[in-house]
C-alpha cells in the first residue's frame, strides 16, 4: 500500500531541476513567501465553527480538521449526548432491604462511523462505542444481564471488587454467541471505573470497541467526614444537580490494522467537540469522569486551556489526589475525576486536548463553549 513513499532525489533529471530552480530563484521566492504565510492562528474555536461552512479556510489551525460530519442518526449514538447519557438500570428492593440495580447489556457486531466517511467494523455493547455509562450507588447490589448477539465470545470484566467467578475472564463469565450470563456483585469501591471485554485476544476486543464507563457514586452516609462532597457526587441529589457532569471516554481506532491509531477521540468521533463545542454554563462547576481506553499507545493525557482543575485519581477518594493542575496523564485503563469551574472566566471557547500533539491533530481535541446561562 505504501510503495509510493519514496521521492528519489538521486535521479539525474531531478538534479537538473536544481539548476532550473537556482536560475528561477527570484521568480520562485515570491510565491514561496506567499505559501509560507502563517495565516490566522488565533481563535481556534471560531475558526472551527466557520470551517463547517467554508471548505477552504485560510491556512491556519482551523484547516487542520477532518472534513464533513458523522451521521449520528445512522450510528445510533451521538458523542455529545453520550457526555451526559447515564445508564442507571432498573431499581428494585431485595428481601434484606438493599437496593438491587439491574442492567441489560448486549454484545453486537456493528459497523460504525468513527470519523466523517470512515466506517469501522466495531464490536459493541448495546450497539454503541463506548458502551453505556453505567452508574450505581456505593453498596447497592448490581446485576448485569449480558446477552451475546455478536459473532465472537465476549464478556464484561468490571474494574471493581467482586468474586473470581464474576470476573469476566475466560472460565468466569465468558459468553459464547447466542448465550447469556448474569454478573452479580456489590457496588464497591466508589469511584470512576470502567468495564471492558476480557475475551482473547484482549487487545483486539478492546480496540474494536468493547468498553465503557462504570461509575459508583459514594454513599454520603458512609463518609460522614465528607458527606457534602459525597452528596455532590451522588446522582440525583440537589447538590449533584448543581454540577455539570460529563463522561469522557478517550478512545482511538486503528483502521488499517497496522497497530497504530488513525483516529483519536473522546466518545469515538474524531473532532466531534471541535465541530460542536460542549456547552458549559459559566456559574456551574464542571465534573468530568475521564477514562483512558486507548489501545496501541501506552499513555494519553488531558490538558485544559486557560484553567486548572483538581484531580481524583480513580475517583476513589473524596479529596483531590492532585490539586490545581492543568494536565493529567492516564495510562491505559487509568481513569479519574476532574473538577473545575469557569465561574471567574469570561464567556468564550476554551480548548481541551491531550498534550500528545499527535493525538490532538488526529482528532482528540475539543472546545468548551462557556456561556452565561442556558437560553
Amino acid at each position, binding site marked *: 500500500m505504501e510503495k509510493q513513499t519514496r521521492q528519489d532525489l538521486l535521479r539525474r533529471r531531478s538534479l537538473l531541476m536544481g539548476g532550473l530552480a537556482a536560475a528561477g530563484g527570484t*521568480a520562485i521566492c515570491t510565491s514561496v513567501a506567499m505559501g509560507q504565510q502563517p495565516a490566522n492562528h488565533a481563535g481556534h474555536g471560531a475558526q472551527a465553527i466557520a470551517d463547517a461552512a467554508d471548505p477552504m479556510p485560510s491556512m491556519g489551525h482551523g484547516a487542520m480538521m477532518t472534513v464533513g460530519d458523522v451521521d449520528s442518526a445512522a450510528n445510533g449514538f451521538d458523542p455529545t449526548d453520550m457526555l451526559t447519557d447515564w445508564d442507571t438500570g432498573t431499581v428494585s428492593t431485595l428481601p434484606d432491604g438493599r437496593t438491587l440495580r439491574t442492567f441489560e447489556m448486549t454484545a453486537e457486531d456493528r459497523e460504525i462511523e468513527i470519523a466523517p466517511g470512515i466506517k469501522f467494523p466495531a464490536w459493541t455493547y448495546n450497539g454503541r462505542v463506548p458502551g453505556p455509562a453505567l452508574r450505581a450507588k456505593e453498596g447497592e447490589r448490581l446485576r448485569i444481564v449480558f446477552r451475546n448477539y455478536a459473532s465472537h465470545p465476549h464478556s464484561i470484566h468490571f474494574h471493581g471488587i467482586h468474586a473470581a467467578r464474576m470476573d469476566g475472564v475466560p472460565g468466569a463469565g465468558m459468553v459464547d454467541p447466542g448465550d447469556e450470563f448474569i454478573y452479580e456483585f456489590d457496588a464497591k469501591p466508589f469511584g470512576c471505573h470502567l468495564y471492558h471485554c476480557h475475551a482473547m485476544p484482549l487487545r483486539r476486543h478492546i480496540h474494536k470497541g468493547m468498553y465503557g464507563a462504570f461509575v459508583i457514586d459514594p454513599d454520603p452516609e458512609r463518609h460522614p467526614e465528607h458527606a457534602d462532597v459525597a452528596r455532590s457526587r451522588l446522582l440525583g441529589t440537589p447538590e449533584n444537580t448543581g454540577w455539570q457532569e460529563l463522561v469522557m471516554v478517550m478512545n482511538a481506532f486503528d483502521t488499517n490494522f497496522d497497530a497504530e491509531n488513525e483516529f483519536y477521540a473522546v466518545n469515538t468521533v474524531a473532532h466531534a467537540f471541535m465541530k460542536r463545542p460542549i456547552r458549559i454554563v459559566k456559574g456551574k462547576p464542571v465534573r468530568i469522569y475521564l477514562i483512558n481506553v486507548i489501545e496501541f499507545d501506552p499513555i494519553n493525557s488531558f490538558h485544559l486551556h486557560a484553567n486548572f482543575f483538581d484531580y481524583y485519581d480513580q475517583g476513589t477518594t473524596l479529596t483531590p489526589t492532585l490539586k490545581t493542575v492543568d494536565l493529567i496523564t492516564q495510562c491505559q485503563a487509568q481513569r479519574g475525576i476532574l473538577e473545575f469551574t469557569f465561574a471567574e472566566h469570561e464567556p468564550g471557547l476554551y480548548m481541551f486536548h491531550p498534550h500528545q500533539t499527535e493525538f490532538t491533530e488526529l482528532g482528540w481535541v475539543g472546545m468548551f463553549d462557556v456561556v452565561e446561562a442556558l437560553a
Partner: protein
Amino acid sequence: MNEMLPRAAIRAARTNLVWLALPLLAFGVAVAWILSTDPLSGFRNGAPPVENLTFERTVFDEGGLRLLVRAGGSEPMTVAQVQVDDAYWQFTQDPPGPIARGRAAWLKLPFPWMLGEAHAVKVVTSTGATFAHDIAVAVPTPQATTGQMRLQAMVGIIVGIVPVAVGLMFYPVLRDVGREGMAFLLSLTIGLLGFLLVDAGAEALELASETAAIFQGPVMVVLAALSSFLLLMAIGRRSGAPAGVALSTYIALGIGLHNLGEGLAIGAAFAAGSAGLGTFLVLGFALHNVTEGIGIAAPILKKRPSLWTFVGLTLLAGGPAVIGMWLGSLAASAQWSALALAVGAGAILQVIVEVGAYLRRQSERGRDVFLTPPVLAGLAAGAAFMYVTAALVKI
C-alpha cells in the same frame, strides 16, 4: 462449369462465416451464463474490496498542497480524510465523490507547507485503509507562466540542443578520419547509444513502478519499446537500409525521443517538488550529451550536407528536451514519462541495429568488423564516456 465456380466460392465463404460465428456465439452464451447465474458468488466472503491509490502529481503553491490521485481498486473508492504530517487537514476533491477504477481526482489542501522540508501525506479511505505519499523536499511548483516556460526552454536548450550542436561542430575535423577512424566513430556511436538504451530502459522501468497498477508499468514499458523498435525498423527499411543523412536522421530521432522522455521526467520531477542543487549539474549533463552530436555526424562525414541539414538534425535530437520539459512540468504523470522513455528506448535500439548494419556495410570484413581494434575501442569509448560523464550528474 464456369458459372459454378463463384457459387462454390460463395458456399465456401458461407461455411467459413458459420465457423467464424460459432466460437463467438459459444463465448456469448458463456458470458450470458456467467452474468445470469453469478457462479462467482461462492467466492464472496464479506472481505472489503481491494483498494489501491497512486499519487501521480504533487503541486505546492500559495493555495497549499494539491495531489492528483488515481484509484486502482476493485470498486469505486472514497477518499474520506487526508492526513498531512500526522494531522487531519480539510480538503476538497475535484471531481467529488467516489473515484472509479482507473480514474483520477485532485485533492486540494489549504496546507501551510514549509519550504525545503519533508511532508508525509496519508489518504484514509472510507474503509479505513491508508495510502501514504512522502514528499522529500517541498518546493513551489512552477506555474505555467511565460517566464517559467522560457526558463525551462533555456535548460532544455542547454542540456538538449547545445551538446548536439557542439558535437556536430566536430564535423570538419571528423571528415578527415580514415576508414579505421570512421569505424571508430560509428562504434563510438553504438557505444553511447548502448548506454542510453540501458539508461532509458532502467529509468522507464523505475518510473513504471510508480504508476497506478492499472497501467501495468513494466509490461507497458517493454511493449512500447518493442513496438516502437519494430515500427521504426519497418519505416527505416521501407526503401532499403538507411545510410547517410537518412541514418543520421534516425540517430537524431532516437536521441530526440530519448531526450523527450528525459524532458518529461525532468519536468514531472520539477512539478512533483523534487529538486537537486546546482547549475554545474546542468553543465555536467550538457557535457555528457556532447557525444550525441558526434554520433549523429558519423554517417554523413562523406556526404557534405547543407547547413540546414545540421540545424534540422540538431533540433530533431535536442529540441524534444524542451518540449518534454514543458509537457512534464505542466501535465505529465509517471506513466507518460515512462511511456515516452520506453518509446525512446525502442528508437535507440533501432538506431543501434541500423548503425551496426551500416558499419558492417562500410567494411569489406563483413561481420568480423565488430572484432577489429578500432570498433572494439569505439564501443568501449562511447559507453565509457557516457558512463563517466553521467557520474558528474549523479549524487
